[in-house]
């Protein structure tokens, strides 16, 4: 049972992901954009963040840059769940892992709800900051 911050711009997908993760026993807060997500993180104290990179306005990387600049969130696990195709993500994936401590990169069209839940369960940050 963990607090999950889900950053998902699509209303309906956000609802579906939330219901699936809640069914798996987690508490989920959905934010549609980067600004909302930073505010939500303060309320939720997330154990894990699932973030789409393609947001409107500020993108997922701006969110991660902001998020990681706060001491208490520097080791919070982050999973990317995105519509950006793997062949376009290519080099960026390594940079995302290196610069922002991203634990997993998932491609939405090919990631089932079960796979998302498994990835979340695998990477939840323990209270001591370890995944």
């Amino acid at each position, binding site marked *: 049972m963990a607090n999950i911050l889900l950053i998902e711009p699509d209303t309906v997908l956000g609802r579906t992901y939330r219901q699936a993760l809640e069914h798996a026993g987690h508490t989920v807060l959905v934010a549609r954009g980067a600004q909302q997500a930073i505010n939500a993180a303060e309320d939720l104290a997330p154990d894990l963040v699932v973030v789409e990179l393609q947001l409107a306005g500020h993108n997922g990387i701006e969110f991660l840059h902001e998020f990681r600049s706060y001491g208490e969130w520097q080791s919070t696990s982050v999973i990317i769940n995105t519509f950006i195709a793997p062949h376009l*993500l290519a080099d960026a994936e390594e940079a995302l892992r290196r610069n922002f401590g991203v634990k997993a990169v998932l491609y939405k069209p090919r990631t089932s709800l079960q796979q998302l839940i498994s990835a979340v369960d695998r990477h939840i940050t323990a209270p001591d900051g370890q995944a």
Partner: protein
Amino acid sequence: MNQLTTTAIILNRTDYGEADRILTLLTPDYGKLTLLAKGVRRVKSKLAGGIELFSVSEITFIKGRGEVGTLVSTRLAKHYKHIVGDLDRTMLGYELIKKLHKATEDEPEEGYFDLLRQAFEALDDTSVDPRLVQLWFLMQLLRLGGYMPNLETDIEGKKLSADMTYTFSFDGSAFAQHPEGVFAANHIKFLRLGFGGHSALALAHVQGVGRLVQEVQGIVTTMTTSHIRS
């Protein structure tokens, strides 16, 4: 108290206490500044405006007695929207900020603020290939750091010729004549433009720029690895 105003690009932010943040900014008039921004955590988050990634802001601050001043106010002057609309540009922009922050750990000379601002302008221009921006940026880092290659004479002191081909000697930071050398007049001209302080946007108009970028990349990145702190 004496309030000062300047433009700034943020390089880094860290927490300080319960409600404050320490910001490292690059400015044209005061070089690198470290400023305390009081009471600005989360609810008035930077993403709302003011100080953001890939932005230039107008700031007002008070110089501290020590190294840390106090930020009084900020106003967003320009946010480079097209950088954040593209993943490759975002990742590159982020890398450039990091690189410049590292390269200017000691007190930076003049020119670094303009370098970063021009890099943002070029990255924000969707007609300019990000790889050109990256190469151009590294050339400027080398130029500002005083590590330019010799683009006038070869390793033996002879004037570079339009009719010759060359290899590049990293030991001498100069070209060496070679009958099977891969570098020729067009490469040298391109490097002269890049190291001559022309903008990335100007370089983007050079004929065959895509191939030139690929072909001189090795020279520039190897020199950067050798000379620029990372």
